[in-house]
């Protein structure tokens, strides 16, 4: 007989093993879906998860997609650790891209070493400004940050749309909804000839290191952990709750804004309507899959980035619709949450007596 028993305390080993289990279960379920759709499951999974990253170019594309995911997820982990549900990173990314894109356009056809740092900084500030809206409304007006941050995503995309169609559209661009190309000084340098991977990856890596330091070596990290665990305890300990809420939102806004900068000054090189394939939403999954741990988030961003590439490859080679990527992303989170059950409960085998 099998009995479900509550663990005395959550198992630490299982805490880091369940993401692996979740990925495995997602592959099984994904194979099943492919089978139902009439594809050979193993072949489809191979096209989805192995073919896209089998060569040098593919690997560079993987890092290219993982960079914004990692950066945003690191930022989000500050929010999620302290019980702040910022789910509008997509909007903060978009607004960061708008501000930095605007600055980059100011330097149109100008060159200089100082341009790129200003453009990057502008993106971070843009993201912070946009994230400060749900933060301030939450702290001073008691407004639900989930709904506010999400509504702002729609607003930011409409602002971007207005700008690239209207005032910022390329005067020589035959009315295409896009701005001028940024000057070379406003673009992130490429790391290798012929590959799209760019210097933005260092921003992501810096975010990983800094966040690790803040989480585990500073008083702020400790406060965040306590607040996430129990708001009452945090209040009792006398932490400045409001200040912390605003701070974590600003951090995650800055990260999302930087991810936006990385996209428009990296592979895109201008502003247009579709600057992000929902990186801001997918990064929520990355943050959870990485267990809100900086190193975990690196691995998680690589895994989830494959779903983007796999969806593209599978669409080209097998005519599998590209939305399969999103289905996989949703499933990973489902399975991860489900397998968390093992953290708190264990199955006990009880020999039946004859």
């Amino acid at each position: 007989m099998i009995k479900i028993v509550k663990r005395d305390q959550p198992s630490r080993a299982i805490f880091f093993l369940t993401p692996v289990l979740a990925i495995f279960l997602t592959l099984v379920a994904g194979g099943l879906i492919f089978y139902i759709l009439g594809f050979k499951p193993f072949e489809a999974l191979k096209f989805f998860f192995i073919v896209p990253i089998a060569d040098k170019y593919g690997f560079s594309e993987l890092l290219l997609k993982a960079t914004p995911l990692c950066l945003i997820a690191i930022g989000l982990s500050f929010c999620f650790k302290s019980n702040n549900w910022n789910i509008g990173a997509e909007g903060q990314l978009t607004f960061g891209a708008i501000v930095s894109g605007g600055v980059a356009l100011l330097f149109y056809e100008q060159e200089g070493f100082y341009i790129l740092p200003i453009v990057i900084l502008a993106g971070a500030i843009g993201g912070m400004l946009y994230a400060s809206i749900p933060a301030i409304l939450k702290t001073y007006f008691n407004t639900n940050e989930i709904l506010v941050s999400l509504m702002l995503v729609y607003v930011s995309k409409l602002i971007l749309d207005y700008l690239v169609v209207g005032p910022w559209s390329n005067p020589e661009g035959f009315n295409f909804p896009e701005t001028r190309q940024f000057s070379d000084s406003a673009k992130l340098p490429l790391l290798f000839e012929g590959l799209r991977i760019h210097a933005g990856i260092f921003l992501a890596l810096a975010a990983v290191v800094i966040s690790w330091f803040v989480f585990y070596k500073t008083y702020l990290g400790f406060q965040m952990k306590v607040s996430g665990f129990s708001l009452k305890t945090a209040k009792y300990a006398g932490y400045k709750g409001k200040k912390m809420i605003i701070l974590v939102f600003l951090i995650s806004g800055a990260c999302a804004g930087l991810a936006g900068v990385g996209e428009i000054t990296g592979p895109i090189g201008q502003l247009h309507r579709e600057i992000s394939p929902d990186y801001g939403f997918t990064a929520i999954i990355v943050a959870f899959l990485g267990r809100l741990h900086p190193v975990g988030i690196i691995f998680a961003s690589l895994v989830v980035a494959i779903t983007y590439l796999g969806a593209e490859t599978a669409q080209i080679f097998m005519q599998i619709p590209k939305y399969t990527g999103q289905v996989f992303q949703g499933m990973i989170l489902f399975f991860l949450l489900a397998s968390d059950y093992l953290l708190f409960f264990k199955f006990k085998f009880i020999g039946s007596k004859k």
Partner: protein
Amino acid sequence: MIIDINFIGLIIASIMASAVPLILASCGELITERSGVLNLGVEGMMIIGAISGFALMTVTGSLIIAIFGAMLAGVLISTIFAFLTQTLITNHVATGLALTIFGIGISAMIGKNFVGIPGKEFPVLFEGLKNTIPLLGPILFGHSIVFYFAFALPFITSYFLKKTKIGLIVRAVGDSPESASNQGINVRLVRYACILYGGAMSGLAGAYLSMIYTPQWIENMTGGRGWIALALVVFSTWNPIKILIGAMIFGGLTIIQFHMQAIGVRIPVQFLTALPYIVTIIVLVVISRDSRKIRLSTPSSLGKSFHKDN
């Protein structure tokens, strides 16, 4: 200038029509939340309802099968949420987000073969009475059965919660699962039922969009309505009658935006489109500012997991 009084009636009727999906999804979510469960997957359940309704209508040709099929699809997808949050005790917010991402992906996957297919005409009731009463005629008559159901639903929901025994049980489970459990109520069962009901209503809301309101399938056609429905529940302070008011305001914003574009008001179209989202934020701020009032009307156990130790 003479304004045709029936034209005003038609505008009001179109505002009501655009309020229908919001009323349906909000009233469903309200019951879910009243039992203490926060399901952020409304957008996902709605889009699943939209594609299921449209696909079933195209394949079977039967509107009845399509409408009920969409509700069933909403129930099925919300079962995932119910199983995770109630049986496996997962976090409500994260699970709801996963549901939305998953729902949007699955709907686009299924919907690939239904893009560009024209919808069917959905029968309307009392068409002949439309021109018998000035102003009220177009408001009251000539709508689909779903339309009438949506406008009755807030009152039914209110009656259910206040006057029936099951309604009382739902509220008890939401306000104090511990004491409800001590009274012998199966908290998990009640919450399962409320989640599935919410799924059915979101599914119906989606089917209304793809079968009646704009009879066609477009990817992502719910366009954030599920999230606005969630905001409406907060706006209503968990009172179904107030959902009606809120949904009319948002319906009005959507419709006015079309008319302003039509008469050539020189405001960028993007600003008008953003208006419902901006107004949602403003309304949320105004409602939530009074933190005491919010605390009093929010179901006490909203979003918190309940697990009875065996």
